[in-house]
């Protein structure tokens, strides 16, 4: 898969024809590649073979005569002769099917799998056709809910071990297992522990019978009534390839597509079941308008598109460009993002545009660093440095790929995260920086990779050490300083940093840094500093762990301050005809980012604020500032699928947009891989695609500015014309790479190839090292982990979880109850220090606000930290945080 192709081949004979097989390949795979399909139930190319079902029995001769062997368990060998259609093979397959069907209920007419069922299909193709079993079949209670979404029908189960193998091998959540033996074997969970896996939906997709079904699709359709389009998952920035299936203009199911470079056919349950929100009754069907904020009526009234768009255009005409701002845009397709960038920057002329809500990465950093692909990160024998969020929570399908690479391909993981992640138990080194000191820890780590520097820094006498290091004395003193700061991190000792650094410097086979925002209580520029230091490592490449769907596309399309398509800054664009003459004008000067926009709006300096699928109230790091910004902007225009909290609070004009399965376009994932998004159904009511809304507004403001930009393909063509980066994005390339998508070139590993000033520009001067703030340490116990913190005080860590109280999940019937109740998690060692009993309802209080939660202990949280989920129901963590503060100190109070 990711390994280099072996050059040698093994020649085998399949039904008399010579076939070249790959060494070590299983017979069943070699036959399939050469066009001979061998029936199977248990074999799955992405999991290890087990030989459970015996359906793939064929006759194999390795020199001792033909004998029946399961082809999924037999590796090919030179000169092997295979007969897949011999008398004996056919009889064996027929017999296996007859046995499998003995206890199978044959309730195909009412079974969801009927019509796409491997058991049904293969019985027709290879089976006996008649049964000799006249006795009563087995009966079990059914269906059994083994989780909130997945149902098990034991009568249909043929014990192929696919679901249990997936749970164990792929997901690492072995919460289902075979229990009992022989005739009594069954798939089961442990008493009281449901199959609560983020990946449970995959077991439904790979079940070769109808034994596992998922709530969103149960009894909704028959497979032959579904039409299918290849598309891209939209809930996170990984861009998993999916098959969207619909019937009668309604999306009914999303299945994972096996793109080798991306998701291997797997999906997280959020990617798989997130479509439910698109079918929600709460979708906005038509534009609506309401009177000014201070008027009597706050009720929306329904409006026509003409009226609503003219109202927006009027507001934009009336405002001077620097008093217009656009927030959001990661939900949009690349084409819509380009159209909105063009509208805002090229037509209106404002640069106050930010697709990230203060919770992302500096765009210059994302676009300016040498870029890694998922395959690069998972390359056998490589090393991954995770300085970012928990992949299991934020990029679950990336977690599956990384997990596979670590478990099976010898990839080594070093993680620098504020609390234990889903990969911690597989990590070679886990460093837990004290909130606010992440940058220092990364710097110490990077400096320590130089053995000379490390050795010298360890010497007692500073002078001696500096002498020993010779020309590296600067770095020695830097390392000393960084180590000193990092060592004040609770739980991070010098030895841990040193051994992690040795793992990095010894990285054979490539080093990939997965870089993203971890705790949202830490400001973004910590990551700038960390990235700056990371780039000192030779041959490091970066996989940016971006938040939200098409965040990468938004940055590439220029939906960020001081950026236009093609990774160019405003000052780099020529004076003549900007962007190949396609844009009427350009903003006069660089604009504001999300927090700048909200600050300006709160001051009353923003006349028109466009929320492009943004919900700053819930997503911006500082809820108070978001509130004041939304209330302070004169006219708030929302383009969204739902009336989210920010829209309810402040929007004057609401324009309903088409969802991800309702418009054509492309998606750019975190690697820069562009893949197709397909229109499968029509949007509700009169909702329009985002690009159409932008085009209409552009035309009203600047007639002729969008001439010829009608279908998304035309927009794509203009994008490829104005942006060198997007030049490879031809229709031909997209068609040819239908499954895996087209990879946009990033900055090369050498920093030479194209891009943003060769990857140097983002390296702005380093922030002053954050002093470890907080009151003096406790004198009675200098070893206390919570050095510098008073009794009952903690440093806040706020991280995202897969299930939260977000707008999309609120409208997914199968997932909306899965968000965990608000919990304040502290290290068990801190239980006494909290001043409140563990398990009690508490109020987590910062200088800026408070939330209510249950106090719990979690060994994955380092002592001294207190971890809350970002958007737990009723307890948004951004109430506690003020934008721009390095460290948030919180207390817990009984409540």
């Amino acid at each position, binding site marked *: 898969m990711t390994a280099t192709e072996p050059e040698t081949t093994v020649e085998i004979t399949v039904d008399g024809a010579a076939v070249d097989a790959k060494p070590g390949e299983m017979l069943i795979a070699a036959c399939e590649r050469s066009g001979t399909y061998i029936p199977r139930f248990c074999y799955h190319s992405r999991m290890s073979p087990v030989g459970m079902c015996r359906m793939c029995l064929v006759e194999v001769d390795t020199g001792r005569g033909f004998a029946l062997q399961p082809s999924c368990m037999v590796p090919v060998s030179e000169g092997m002769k295979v007969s897949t259609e011999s008398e004996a093979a056919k009889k064996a397959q027929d017999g296996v099917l007859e046995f499998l069907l003995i206890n199978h209920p044959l309730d195909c007419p009412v079974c969801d799998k009927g019509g796409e069922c491997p058991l049904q299909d293969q019985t027709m193709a290879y089976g006996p056709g008649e049964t000799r079993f006249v006795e009563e079949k087995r009966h079990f209670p059914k269906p059994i809910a083994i989780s909130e979404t997945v149902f098990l029908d034991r009568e249909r189960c043929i014990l192929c071990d696919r679901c249990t193998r997936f749970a164990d091998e792929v997901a690492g959540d*072995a*919460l289902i*297992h*075979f*229990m009992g*033996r022989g005739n009594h074997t069954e798939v*089961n*969970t*442990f008493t*009281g522990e449901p199959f609560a896996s983020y990946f449970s939906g995959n077991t439904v997709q790979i079940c070769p019978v109808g034994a596992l079904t998922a709530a969103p699709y149960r009894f909704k359709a028959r497979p032959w009534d579904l039409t299918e389009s290849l598309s891209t998952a939209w809930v996170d920035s990984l861009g998993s390839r999916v098959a969207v299936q619909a019937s009668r203009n309604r999306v009914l199911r999303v299945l994972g597509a096996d793109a080798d470079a991306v998701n291997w056919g797997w999906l997280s349950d959020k990617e798989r079941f997130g479509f439910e929100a698109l079918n929600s009754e709460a979708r906005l069907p038509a534009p609506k308008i309401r009177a000014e904020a201070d008027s009597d009526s706050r009720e929306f009234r329904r409006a026509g598109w003409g009226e609503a768009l003219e109202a927006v255009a009027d507001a934009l005409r009336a405002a001077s460009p620097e008093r217009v701002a656009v927030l959001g845009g990661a939900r949009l397709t690349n084409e819509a993002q380009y159209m909105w960038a063009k509208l805002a920057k090229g037509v209106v002329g404002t640069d106050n545009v930010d697709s990230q809500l203060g919770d992302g990465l500096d765009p210059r950093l994302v676009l300016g660093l040498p870029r890694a692909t998922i395959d690069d990160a998972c390359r056998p024998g490589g090393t991954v440095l995770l300085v970012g969020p928990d992949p299991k929570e934020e990029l679950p399908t990336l977690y599956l790929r990384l997990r596979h690479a670590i478990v099976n391909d010898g990839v080594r993981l070093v993680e620098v995260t504020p609390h234990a992640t889903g990969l911690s138990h597989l990590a070679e080194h886990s460093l837990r920086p004290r909130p606010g000191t992440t940058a220092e820890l990364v710097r110490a780590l990077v400096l320590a990779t130089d053995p000379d520097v490390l050795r010298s820094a360890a010497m007692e006498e500073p002078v001696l050490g500096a002498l020993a290091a010779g020309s590296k004395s600067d770095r020695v003193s830097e390392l000393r300083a960084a180590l000193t700061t990092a060592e004040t991190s609770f739980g991070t000792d010098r030895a841990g940093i040193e051994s992690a650094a040795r793992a990095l410097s010894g990285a054979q086979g490539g080093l990939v840094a997965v870089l993203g925002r971890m705790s949202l209580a830490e400001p973004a520029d910590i990551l700038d500093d960390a990235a700056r230091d990371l780039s000192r490592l030779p041959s490091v490449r970066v996989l940016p762990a971006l938040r939200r769907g098409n965040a990468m596309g938004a940055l590439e399309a220029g939906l960020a301050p001081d950026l236009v398509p093609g990774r160019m800054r405003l000052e780099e664009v020529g004076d003549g005809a900007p962007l190949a003459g396609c844009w009427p004008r350009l903003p006069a000067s660089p604009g504001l980012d999300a927090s700048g926009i909200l600050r300006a709006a709160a001051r009353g300096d923003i006349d028109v604020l466009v929320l492009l699928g943004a919900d700053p109230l819930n997503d911006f790091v500082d809820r108070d500032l978001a509130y004041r910004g939304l209330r302070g902007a004169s006219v708030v225009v929302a383009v969204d699928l739902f009336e989210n909290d920010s829209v309810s609070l402040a929007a004057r004009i609401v324009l309903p947009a088409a969802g991800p399965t309702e418009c054509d376009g492309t998606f750019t994932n975190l690697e820069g891989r562009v893949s197709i998004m397909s229109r499968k159904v029509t949007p509700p009511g009169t909702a329009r695609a985002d690009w159409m809304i932008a085009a209409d507004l552009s035309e009203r403001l600047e007639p002729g500015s969008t001439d010829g930009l009608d279908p998304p393909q035309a927009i794509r063509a203009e994008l490829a014309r104005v942006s060198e980066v997007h030049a490879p994005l031809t229709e031909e390339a997209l068609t040819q790479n239908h499954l895996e998508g087209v990879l946009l070139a990033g900055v090369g590993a050498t920093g030479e190839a194209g891009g943003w000033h060769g990857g140097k520009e983002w390296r702005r001067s380093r922030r002053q090292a954050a002093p470890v703030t907080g009151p003096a340490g406790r004198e009675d116990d200098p070893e206390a982990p919570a050095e510098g913190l008073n009794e009952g005080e903690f440093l806040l860590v706020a991280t995202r979880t897969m299930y939260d109280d977000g707008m999309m999940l609120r409208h997914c019937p199968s997932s909306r109850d899965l968000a965990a109740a608000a919990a304040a998690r502290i290290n068990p060692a801190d239980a006494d220090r909290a001043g409140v009993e563990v398990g009690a309802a508490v109020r987590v209080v910062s200088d800026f606000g408070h939330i209510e939660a249950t106090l719990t202990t979690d060994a994955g949280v380092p002592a001294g930290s207190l971890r809350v989920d970002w958007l737990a129901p009723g307890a948004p963590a951004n109430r506690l945080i003020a934008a721009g503060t390095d460290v948030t100190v919180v207390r817990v109070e009984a409540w």
Partner: protein
Amino acid sequence: MTLSDANEAQAAEIIGWFPRPRSALIPLLHLAQAQDGYLTDGAMRRIAELVGATPAEVKGTAGFYEMFRFEPVGTYLVNVCTNISCLLWGGEELLEHACESLDVEVGGTTDDGMFTVEEAECIAACTEAPCLQVNYRYRGRVTPADFDRLIEDLRAGRAGIAGHGVLAQVRQSIPAERLAGVVPPEQAREAPVWLARNDVEAVR
């Protein structure tokens, strides 16, 4: 119910015998069953923690083996053999007598929680037919009268058979001449040959 303090200590020792904690799973299941007579959910959860598996994996593994039990049993589990030799020598009658005298169905437990009677397939003591086991300790050539005496002795604590709970702490005494020559792990000088070399390194 989880593991008692004494059994926790023993579990730690057992885990130390193996190159990987997971390998200790089956011995730990025996330990837990000896403690409670059956595998409680709490004990399986604790074992899962100890060996680094999920409770589902622990239960799944235990479920493969017939002699691990998931339902409570009496202090003394009486297995009466009714296989061919015992059948010929009155095993059926012995089982019937056991059930009648203890007033239980086959598989049932007496009201006082002292005895559970089960029918066993061959327990490999055909020379001693009809035979039975009490908590896996053998009694051979058992007549109904012998059975009544045995029950009386068990009730009086004279039978020399421990009830579960302390079973794990009581070693069966095997005469020296009948030992198979297996060296106890703690006395072994060399790692067993079946351990791969890198495993041996890992152990050290």
